[in-house]
């Protein structure tokens, strides 16, 4: 674990990505509290203005402070990203564990179901669900999480299949360890690495899906804001006020970039095979 951490930090790019994300999370959490403005507070006389000392990133057509809105929207986007990933991890780990442990026909059938599910137009389902039962915040991450667990299940199942016949598990079983003891003490700790790596690669995908839903008007509902909502507002106003699109877009792209770099870095640090290609 420590060696992997060292390998991760040796690449300057990974350290930068991690630093950026930490700073971003802190800013998104405390920024809106420190700001003299509320994210939904309108100032109709002000309308859209360029960046100024009073409003560092300017204001939108309703006179709302952009920096406050971007930081608040960032918190919502990151929240949805993490919660939906958590849902995907829980479903994927459970499914993969059961499939790998069961083995034989059950395993074959369960993996066949996963193969078939890959051909489902899940985004259509999510769009329809959000259109029919929109305005329910918890539905967003449950719906997104229910879509993104397939690859996680495959990763965990492969790991469990490889682990369960290794000597230390057989030895534990020979010593009389129960089923749950083996799962809890021997299998789970050993699938944690791959699960963390894959989860970190899932977060940007989940955030993209949330932004897409909000962009279509089916995700987070105004006056609340997420980056998807801000980008949609910006796209409507871009002809006159292009920065309303560019600022939230930059924050979103930079976050996706950092998450992707970190995910790749984690994979390289934990997996010696992909290291050898470096």
């Amino acid at each position, binding site marked *: 674990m420590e060696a992997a951490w060292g390998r991760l930090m040796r690449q300057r790019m990974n350290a930068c990505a991690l630093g950026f994300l930490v700073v971003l999370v802190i800013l998104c959490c405390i920024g809106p509290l420190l700001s003299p403005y509320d994210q939904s507070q309108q100032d109709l006389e002000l309308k859209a203005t360029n960046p100024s000392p009073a409003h560092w990133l300017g204001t939108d057509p309703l006179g709302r402070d952009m920096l406050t809105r971007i930081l608040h929207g960032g918190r919502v986007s990151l929240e949805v990203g993490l919660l939906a990933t958590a849902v995907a991890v829980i479903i994927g780990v459970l499914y993969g564990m059961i499939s790998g442990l069961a083995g034989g026909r059950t395993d074959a059938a369960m993996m066949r179901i996963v193969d078939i599910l890959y*051909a489902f137009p899940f*985004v*259509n389902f999510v769009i*329809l669900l959000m*259109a029919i039962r929109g305005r329910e915040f918890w539905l967003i991450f449950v719906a997104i999480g229910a879509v993104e667990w397939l690859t996680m299940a495959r990763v965990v199942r492969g790991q469990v299949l490889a682990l369960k016949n290794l000597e230390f598990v057989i030895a534990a079983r020979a010593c009389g360890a129960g089923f749950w003891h083996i799962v809890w003490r021997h299998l789970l700790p050993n699938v944690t690495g791959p699960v963390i790596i894959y989860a970190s690669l899932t977060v940007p995908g989940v955030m993209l899906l949330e932004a897409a839903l909000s962009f279509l008007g089916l995700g987070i509902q105004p006056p609340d804001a997420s980056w998807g909502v801000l980008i949609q507002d910006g*796209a409507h106003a*871009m*002809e006159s006020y292009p920065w309303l699109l560019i600022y939230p877009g930059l924050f979103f792209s930079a976050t996706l970039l950092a998450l992707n770099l970190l995910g790749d870095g984690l994979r390289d640090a934990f997996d010696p095979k992909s290291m050898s290609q470096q």
Partner: protein
Amino acid sequence: MIRFIVSRFVQGIIVIFAVITITFALSKMVPGGSVKNERFISKEAQKAQDEYYGRDKPWIVQLGLQFKHYATLNLPESEHYKGRGVDEIIASGFPVSATVGGAALLIALTIGVPLGAYAALRPNTLEDRASTLAAILGVCAPSMVLGPLIALLFGLKLRWFNASGWFDSWDWVLPAFTLGIIYSGYIARLTRGSLRETLAQEFIRTARAKGAGEASVVFLHALKLASLPVLNFLGPAAAGMLTGSFIVETVFQLPGLGQFFVSAAVNKDIPLAIGLSTFFAALIVSFNLVVDILQSVLNPRIRLHS
């Protein structure tokens, strides 16, 4: 091979009927009962409509009715677009989505494969880093940011193309580039990784030992095997193009399948929503089948089992 295709075909039909069932079930998840018609129409007209869509019957009969529509390929009318059959709407939207998606796929391959191969042949140089970074940037530019920016720059400012709509024979260019640039990033990364892995293998050393030139080693021997992961990605990529079509068709106001689906969902036009989900599933299934067959042709070590 024949057995493989038949078994995948049967599997595809199962997928399609499962998709019909799920979409139908989702449409019944309205809080507080069935879909309420929000338009102001007379009771008689409402009743006639309910009868036409079979909404006066129990759910299980309604689902059976849906199955019958798709098994006999006799699709109902859309609820929102009065007088237009679901199949008519699909037939009008598909050419738009297919033009944009197909062009985007070609653009992604033309940019992505050379960029990735170039990086793989010069490992750990500045060029490698630069092209890898360019590839990652492509991955991180979401279509809802890139699309409006491209529309703003090339449509509204430079006026080279229409910023939105589907009138002109060049209207596919901007949306196709938006999607293509994003996917070229994925393809470049895949190409770089798999080409480097392939170049380290024994048969490449053998080819070099035989005296084959560098160009022949790379293009004849390595790229053929290295293209397998890229080919494998084309299945998900095609599905992604469909997903991307929701955003891109909204940004550029194209009358394609994605736009029709979003409007069907928002207007609770359930017959159209079921038809489009089913069509998307059929497209994904057939694309995956084509990819699998191409793969076995390119790599004789891959046998197709049913």
